[in-house]
């Protein structure tokens, strides 16, 4: 048999810079359906938020104005439907904004890596000009950009809609309401990126689409819960003190409250006001001089948002790093060939 090699042994170096756009083009083609569905959902939510911040807020504000003008008059006429519609749409759109990171996690785990590992098409890609590391890089980079744009847009519109209603609609959610707090800032963006990284890692690790989908979404939920629980302790609080007659006061995210005694020690909160007879004697037994409350006022909104986003982003980066490490370890691309 003739063994004369007639094949050029190496790819011309000039052909290499082309690789990235080619891979991204096929990534888009392979995930065309989720891309179109996702775009439609985002645009739909964005439209709903614009509707909410504009006509719905105006109608609800007007209805509240009329309602408040009625006083105790028995024949009061105001547009109750407008108030209810505002409330419903506000709640649904908030849920929608907060659901995006979970959809991202499920898609990334199920479709982006999990299904490719399960069916073996990842191996096909790795032997068709896309090295494992590049394959993974393209699967993190392009979705990350799109996801940032989508969640950024939605959170911004959500904030606009919420701000438009502040002080005009009586049922506007407080800044520290769970959904409102998270949907109004940078947290959805960070969570969506963490969802992407968690999904990609779960897919590589479990190599089964359904399992990766579930694990990624649950892990993202756990991360969010953990961040939400610890967040108030991650930024210095403000302490409000108040007289014994008034009880602990101050609005915001309360971290702790109690009484301060004559020695300046902080004690647990036994009861709420010295105007109650039982409470008065308890407070004097404790030598209490004032109530205190540690809290985050509305001014802490952005610091808290940025701290939460930072923590989530660090986790996302670690997950992505773990995904690269795992893939390199498994395919033996570890040492020299980083591209």
């Amino acid at each position, binding site marked *: *048999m*003739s*063994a*004369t*090699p*007639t*094949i*050029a*042994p*190496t*790819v*011309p170096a000039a*052909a290499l810079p*082309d*690789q990235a756009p*080619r*891979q991204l*083009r*096929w990534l888009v*083609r*392979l995930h*065309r*359906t989720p891309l179109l569905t996702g775009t439609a959902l985002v645009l739909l939510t964005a439209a709903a938020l614009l509707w909410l911040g504009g006509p719905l807020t105006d109608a609800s504000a007007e209805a509240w104005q009329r309602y408040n003008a009625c006083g105790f008059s028995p024949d009061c006429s105001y547009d109750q439907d407008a108030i209810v519609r505002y409330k419903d749409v506000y709640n649904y759109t908030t849920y929608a904004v907060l659901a995006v990171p979970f959809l991202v996690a499920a898609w990334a785990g199920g479709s982006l890596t999990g299904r490719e590992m399960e*069916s*073996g*098409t990842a*191996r*096909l*890609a*790795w*032997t*068709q*000009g*896309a*090295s494992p590391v590049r394959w993974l890089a393209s699967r993190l980079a392009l979705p990350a950009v799109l996801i940032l744009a989508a969640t950024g847009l939605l959170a911004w519109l959500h904030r606009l809609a919420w701000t438009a209603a502040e002080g005009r609609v009586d049922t506007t959610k407080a800044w520290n309401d769970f959904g409102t707090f998270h949907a109004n800032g940078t947290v959805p963006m960070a969570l969506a990126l963490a969802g992407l990284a968690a999904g990609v890692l779960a897919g590589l690790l479990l190599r089964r689409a359904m399992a990766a989908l579930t694990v990624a979404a649950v892990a993202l939920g756990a991360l969010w819960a953990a961040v939400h629980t610890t967040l108030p302790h991650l930024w210095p609080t403000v302490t409000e003190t108040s007289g014994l007659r008034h009880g602990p006061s101050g609005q915001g995210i309360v971290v702790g409250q109690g009484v301060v005694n004559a020695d300046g020690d902080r004690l647990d909160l036994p009861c709420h006001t010295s105007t109650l007879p039982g409470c008065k004697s308890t407070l004097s037994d404790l030598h209490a001089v004032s109530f205190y409350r540690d809290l985050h006022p509305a001014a802490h909104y952005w610091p808290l948002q940025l701290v939460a986003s930072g923590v989530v982003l660090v986790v996302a980066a670690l997950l992505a790093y773990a995904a690269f490490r795992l893939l390199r*370890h*498994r*395919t*033996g*691309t*570890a040492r*020299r*060939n980083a591209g």
Partner: protein
Amino acid sequence: MTVPAIEADAVGKRFGRRAAWALRDCSFRLPAGRVCAVVGPNGAGKSTLLAITAGLLAPTEGTVAVLGTDPATARPRVGFVDQDKPLYPQLTVAETLRMGADLNPGRWDADTAQRVVAGGDLDPRKRIRALSGGQRTRVALALALGKRPELLLLDEPMADLDPLARHELMGTLMGQAAAHGTTIVMSSHVVAELEDSCDHLLLIGGGRVRLAGEIDDLLAAHTRVSAPAGTELAPHDVVESRTTGRQLSALVRPAGPLPGDWRTGAPSLEELVLSYLRNPGAPAPAPAPETTEAAA
């Protein structure tokens, strides 16, 4: 060509720290330009060995050199068809080939890929998910061949094909090997389908290399003998022996001239392979038959 296509040195792989070894102590050398059959029972480690060679799986121990470098670096020059023939189900046949052309710039051979697909009367607009197993094999082979690989690794490539397609595609593969000097490694558990086309054999059993070398050399090194029952076969290496009535039949590796009163015959490749597989304790040729550095 002095650089061997594959050189494995004590390669071992296990999936998980406590799992059994899927492959162990696997050493062999495949000169470039050969068509090599990897045979062995199911679960013998054939697929693991091919995946390691393709740079898709890192060995737990040992090293493999592919085309003179490590498998990850050699990957662009290696074609691989997985046992399950994975393809993206949402793409059409034409799109799949276009993807191959796009992702392998500078080396894509559209004509060959087209020819392999055209042989199956495939509608290029048909989606992969609508294809039969054999048709998918065709597209998978087209992708691997279109890449103009210097080394083509095929895991059970012919399993889903009807005899006609099998014959035709085997012809295409042999043509590729002859025209471009492509080294082809294909695994199968059907020995007969490889006998005519392969010139090199790698027999894997129980995660180890049982036999490796040029098929002609291996066949020449073994003899089928018949002798009266009770005949002492030493000092020849006995791969397998069986006594039926007063007759002893055996497959031996002669250590010297055989006695004239034994009836001898040349074994077929299938007989050779089956004898080794039936007898896991049979001595492996030591040292392994050194492959000849020919055909440069």
